[in-house]
């Protein structure tokens, strides 16, 4: 995977998906402390879409995601829940449309089977870049389709070389 910018540079916002936290908890001796340490050492915060927060919170108690300490991570400050994406912003909505087409194509589904919520990663990244809250965005996900879709859509909408995707499984391997 080519890296157009250094993901650990201070001007980079990290956007994380549900799968990162699930993968973290599924490893032997769950790796949340390693993820927290990684965030603290590099002075970064994992920004998560609202729906990711709701998904993790709504998981059955006996499942891995049901045991994710997402609230304490949020209280400790290394996870932050994003504001709702600015859907009225034409750049954000174009990015979401493009992500939807990308996922539909790559998963061999009709576009009407892809929901707005599936484009949340791209929407949050577009909002951060368009509002100039971040110069660069790094998307961490275990959903390769969604990650690549976000990169393709943002690249097509004027943010080339300002977004990259990091495979959540690889990141966890690296930091643990």
């Amino acid at each position, binding site marked *: 995977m080519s890296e157009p910018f250094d993901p650990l540079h201070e001007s980079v916002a990290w956007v994380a998906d549900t799968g990162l936290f*699930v993968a973290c908890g599924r490893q032997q001796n769950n790796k949340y402390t390693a993820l927290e340490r990684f965030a603290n050492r590099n002075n970064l915060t994992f920004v998560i879409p609202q729906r990711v927060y709701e998904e993790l919170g*709504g998981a059955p108690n006996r*499942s*891995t995601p049901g045991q994710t300490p997402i609230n304490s991570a949020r209280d400790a400050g290394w996870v932050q829940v994003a504001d709702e994406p600015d859907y009225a912003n034409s750049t954000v909505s174009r990015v979401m449309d493009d992500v939807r087409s990308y996922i539909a194509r790559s*998963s061999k*589904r009709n576009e009407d089977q892809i929901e707005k919520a*599936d484009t949340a990663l791209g929407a949050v990244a577009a909002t951060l870049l368009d509002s100039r809250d971040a110069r660069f965005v790094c998307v961490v996900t275990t959903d390769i*389709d*969604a990650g690549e879709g976000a990169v393709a859509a943002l690249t097509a909408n004027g943010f080339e070389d300002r977004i990259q995707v990091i495979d959540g499984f690889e990141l966890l391997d690296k930091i643990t």
Partner: protein
Amino acid sequence: MNCMSKAAGDPEQAINGLMSIAQLLEEPRLARLYTLVLREGEITIDDIIATLDMPRTTAYSDMGTLVDLGVVTRDESQKTHTYSAVPITLTADLDGDEYTVTPTLIEAVGRSPQDQDLDLLLEKYGLGKLAAALTYAIPYVDGGMSERVAARELDLQYAFAIAVLHALRDVVQDMEPADPYFDDIRNAREQSPSAED
């Protein structure tokens, strides 16, 4: 219905094979043992005990059961007996609803006692759901389906569905090289839910 490659054409063996596979799917301990032998090719009792950390008496008794079921053979020509697995596959077709069971599904069942997500899935939704989840894990692992699309179509709580996909990702990665019938497993990428019924 086609049971165990060797048994093609023989009705008695076909039904015996069906019952053997059903028993593996019902008993995770036997399932785990069977797929271990399949992955290893040839294995001795000592290696089984060391790998699975199980009591010797249990290992002997379970291996005896697998031999009786016809899914494992024992080579007694050497002083140290070795076991090898008979690759099994079963295609069920019930009024057009078709599914091919292969060693990959058996491995998923075998892992369930050690995996809280697979265990919860089996307990709450049953074996059918696990089999369905596997059809999504296959395109998910090879990059042919978005995790979110798979999770939604599985119709489980989202984050839980992702945990199940992650659990099956490990199963698929371990079994693809070992399961000779892997390509026969249904692939959900080819079956859009709206196209059904």
